[in-house]
């Protein structure tokens, strides 16, 4: 347990695992963007302005297939509704005394992985600080944008001769989520995790992947209500 408030550099150091995970994933995104016919500037703009991995891959598919702008935008917005839950869950763990003066800025970096890492640190007894959140978020954001540009510059055919490498890079996202899940799991949360997983599968198979994600999160969180 850390008795002092973690600093900006502590957050930057804590972002290294995310950086190592983000670089190959964002590189893959840059490659996918150029493969779909978008320019390096377009790929850079998507990562800089949206900064949400799964929905950026979805954005490529929607835009490349000619989906109307508003339909595409609202699909992406619905997909990221889950982010509404991250801030309150994090600040609840941080405690009522936690400052949030600069949350309008550092909260931009609250991606799935940054949220998981920050929540895991608090669960392990670390104190909350906005400087730490800035460091954690900035490291991850920089890696995401730089990885995208590198992938877009490398071009759409860079992985064609390396199917095993492409497969490994494609498996990074599920690996990262599983590792994050292991890092924040506890015995009392097992029902929540099980219900969320089953509801996600059911919603995806019955309706769509986006519905499955929303249903899984909602069903898991509602399961938490039944526990005392």
């Amino acid at each position, binding site marked *: 347990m850390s008795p002092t408030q973690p600093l900006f550099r502590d957050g930057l150091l804590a972002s290294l695992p995310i950086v190592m995970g983000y670089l190959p994933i964002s590189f893959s995104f840059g490659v996918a963007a150029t493969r779909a016919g978008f320019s390096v500037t377009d790929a850079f703009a998507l990562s800089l302005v949206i900064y949400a991995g799964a929905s950026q891959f979805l954005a490529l598919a929607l835009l490349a297939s000619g989906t109307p702008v508003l339909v595409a935008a609202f699909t992406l917005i619905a997909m990221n509704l889950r982010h509404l839950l991250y801030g309150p869950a994090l600040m609840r763990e941080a405690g009522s005394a936690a400052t949030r003066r600069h949350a309008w800025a550092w*909260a931009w970096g609250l991606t799935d992985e940054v949220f998981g890492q920050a929540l895991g640190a608090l669960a392990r007894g670390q104190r909350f600080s906005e400087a730490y959140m800035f460091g954690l978020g900035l490291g991850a954001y920089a890696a995401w944008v730089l990885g995208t540009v590198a992938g877009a510059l490398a071009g759409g055919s860079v992985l064609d001769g390396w199917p095993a490498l492409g497969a490994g890079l494609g498996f990074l996202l599920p690996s990262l989520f599983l590792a994050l899940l292991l890092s924040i799991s506890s015995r009392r949360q097992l029902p929540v995790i099980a219900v*969320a997983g089953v509801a996600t599968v059911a919603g995806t198979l019955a309706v769509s992947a986006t519905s499955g994600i929303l249903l899984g999160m909602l069903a898991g969180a509602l399961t938490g209500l039944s526990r005392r």
Partner: protein
Amino acid sequence: MNWDLFAVASLAGAANWAFRALPILARTDRMAPGGWLERFLSATGPAAIATLFAASILPALVPDFLRLLPVATGILAVLATFLARRSVALAALAGALVHGVTVWLFV
């Protein structure tokens, strides 16, 4: 610059910022200890990450042994590495590495 892309990115990005920042600024975490909202929110973290894992692994689960094998070895590598080292990064990279090596050797 693709202007359709810029419009979609701007709308989605603005919504992302609002989803991430506004609930914190509105202090929606202030609630009675042990209350229903607190229990709901304490379950949202594990629920969200479990959901994202299920959603990301689901497309790979097909009734084909050779395509399931790299998924199984990748998951086992994540579990084993996390249990041994307690590191999210090492576990994630080990999973991707073992998955890729299994594809290279068997698929």
